C-alpha cells in the first residue's frame, strides 16, 4: 500500500505553511501525520454525506457594529515591536512573486 503521506506531500504542505524543514523533519512529519490520520480513519469511514457541517458552535447571526470611528494605536508603540522599521513603515526583504 502506498504510504498515506509521502515526502513530497510533506514538502508541499511545508511550503504552503511557510515552514522551512530539513530532510529529517520530512521523514518525521510523514510518519507522524500518517499516524494521526490513521487514527482519524474512523471518521473517514463514516457515511454522513447528508449531515450538515457545524462551523460555529453559536447559533446567532448579524453581529454588527455601527460605522463609528474609534481610537487607533500609537504608531511608536506599534513600531517599537517590529523587527525592522524604516520611515514609519515595516521593512521586509524583497518580494519575489510579482511581475517578471
Amino acid at each position, binding site marked *: 500500500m502506498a504510504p498515506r503521506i509521502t515526502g513530497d506531500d510533506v514538502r*508541499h504542505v511545508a*511550503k*504552503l505553511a*511557510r515552514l522551512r524543514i530539513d530532510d529529517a523533519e520530512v521523514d518525521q512529519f510523514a510518519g507522524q501525520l500518517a499516524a494521526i490520520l490513521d487514527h482519524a480513519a474512523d471518521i473517514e469511514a463514516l457515511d454522513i454525506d447528508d449531515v450538515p457541517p457545524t*462551523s*460555529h458552535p*453559536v447559533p*446567532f*447571526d*448579524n*453581529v*454588527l*457594529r*455601527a*460605522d*463609528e*470611528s*474609534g*481610537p*487607533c*494605536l500609537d*504608531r511608536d508603540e*506599534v*513600531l517599537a515591536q517590529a523587527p525592522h522599521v*524604516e*520611515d*514609519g*513603515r*515595516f*521593512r*521586509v*526583504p*524583497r*518580494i*519575489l*512573486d*510579482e*511581475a*517578471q
Partner: protein
Amino acid sequence: MSWETVIGLEVHCELSTRTKLFCSCPNEFGAAPNTNVCPVCLGLPGSLPVLNERVVEFALRLGEALEFEVPAESIFARKNYFYPDMPKDYQVSQYEQPILVNGRLEVDGTAVGIHRAHLEEDTGKTAHISPTGRIHDAEYSLVDYNRAGVPLMEIVSEPEIRSSEQARSYVQELRATLEALGVSDVKMEEGSLRIDANVSLRPDGASEFGTKVEVKNMNSLRSLGRALDYEVERQRGLLEAGEAVVQETRHWDEGDGRTKGMRSKEEAFDYRYFPEPDLVPVRPTAEWRDRVRATMPELPAARRARLIAEWEIREDDARTLLASPEKIGLAEAAVALGAPAKRVANIVINTPDVSALSAGHLAELVALEGDGTISKTVSKQVLDKVLAGEGSPREIVEREGLANESDEGELASAVDAVVAGHPDEVAAYREGDEGKRKKIRGFLMGQLMKQTQGKADPQTLNRLLDDRLP
C-alpha cells in the same frame, strides 16, 4: 477564422464607509503611514473582527440597484496565503456564500449578467524600494497597513462581455451606479476601483470557452481598453499561428503597452478557504431590505431617462452631464432655482470648467437672457467674466452697460441705415431663392449686431428687419 472575444470583469471597489470593515479605524486615503491602525486591522494576536453594519447596507443597496438575489445567509471565509501586506496572512473574504448573487447591469441596451458580489478586506500597501523603482530590482519593501481592513466589494461579471468597448462601458456604468448609490468614491487612479479581466477567444459560433488569461493592473478606463485590445490581439496571434493560449495571470505594463506573464507558484492557488470562525453569519432580514429599498437614490439609467424627458436634451448630452458629478450637480441646482433646464444644460455642457460657477449665478444669467436683458452673445461674455470672478451676472451687465438697447427708435434707425447702406444685397434678397434669402438675411443681421455691439435684442432686430425687407 474569425474569433469571438469573451471577457469577464472582476471589479474591486473600496467602499466609502467612515470606518474599516472589521474595526473602528478611519477609512481614509492619504494619512501618515501606519497611523490608522489598531489591533484588529494589524492582525495582532488575540484581536477579533466585528462587522461594520454600513458595509452590509451598502451591499444591499447594490443588490437593489443591480437586481441581485440576496441569499438568506451569507458567511465570511478565510483565504489563506502569505503576503507581507496582509497582516494575518489570510484575507477575510466570502467564498461559497457571498452576500449577492445573480445580478445584471444594463450596458448600452444589453444586459450583462453579474455572477456574484462579495465583501472582503483590503490589504496594506507595499512600497518597493529599488534603484530603478521597479519591483524586480527591489532591494527591500516597506509596508503601510493604513489600507489594511478597508472594506472592498468584489463584483464578478459573467463572461458575457464581447469587446473592449463594451468592457469600458460596463465599468463606466458600474462606476456611475456605485457613485449614485453613495457607496464608493470610484476613483480608479487612487485605487478605490480596481479591475481584473478574464480574457479568452473562441471561434465564432463555438459554445465552449477558450483558455482564459487573467489581466491585472489596469489603473484607468483608458488602460483597461488598451490592455484588453492588446491581450485580445496577442491571443488572436497565438491562435492563428496554431499555438495554445496558456492559462496564466498577466500584468498590464502601461509604459510598455503590453501584458506580461507573472511568475506563478505551484501553491499559489491553494487558498485553503474555510469558514471564518471569528464571525457569525449575516442574514439580511426583510425589514432591513425594506429599509434599504425605501432609501434608494435615483440610479444612472433612470436619471438619464428623466433628463432626456424632462429637460428635453439629447441622450449624449445627458451622458456628458452625468459623467461629471460637478456639472450635473450645478445644473440640477440651477434648475431647482427655477432656471429653464434645457438652456442650463446647454451652458453647463459647453463650459469646460464650471468650478467657479455657482448655481445662483448660472440661474441669474439664464434669467437675464430670458427676460431679454441680454442676448446670447452678450451672455457668453458675461459668463466669461463671472468665471473670472468679476462678480454676479447682474453686476457685470450693469457695471459694463451690456444690457440690450431697449429704445426701439434707435434700433429702427440702425436697421434703416444698414438697409440703405447695402442696396445690392437688398436687391439680391428680393430676387433670390430660399437659400439665398437666408444667407443675405444672416449677413444683414451680422452687420446689425456689429453696429449695436451685440447689445440689441435679436428678436426685435428680426422684426424690424422683416418690416423693411421685401
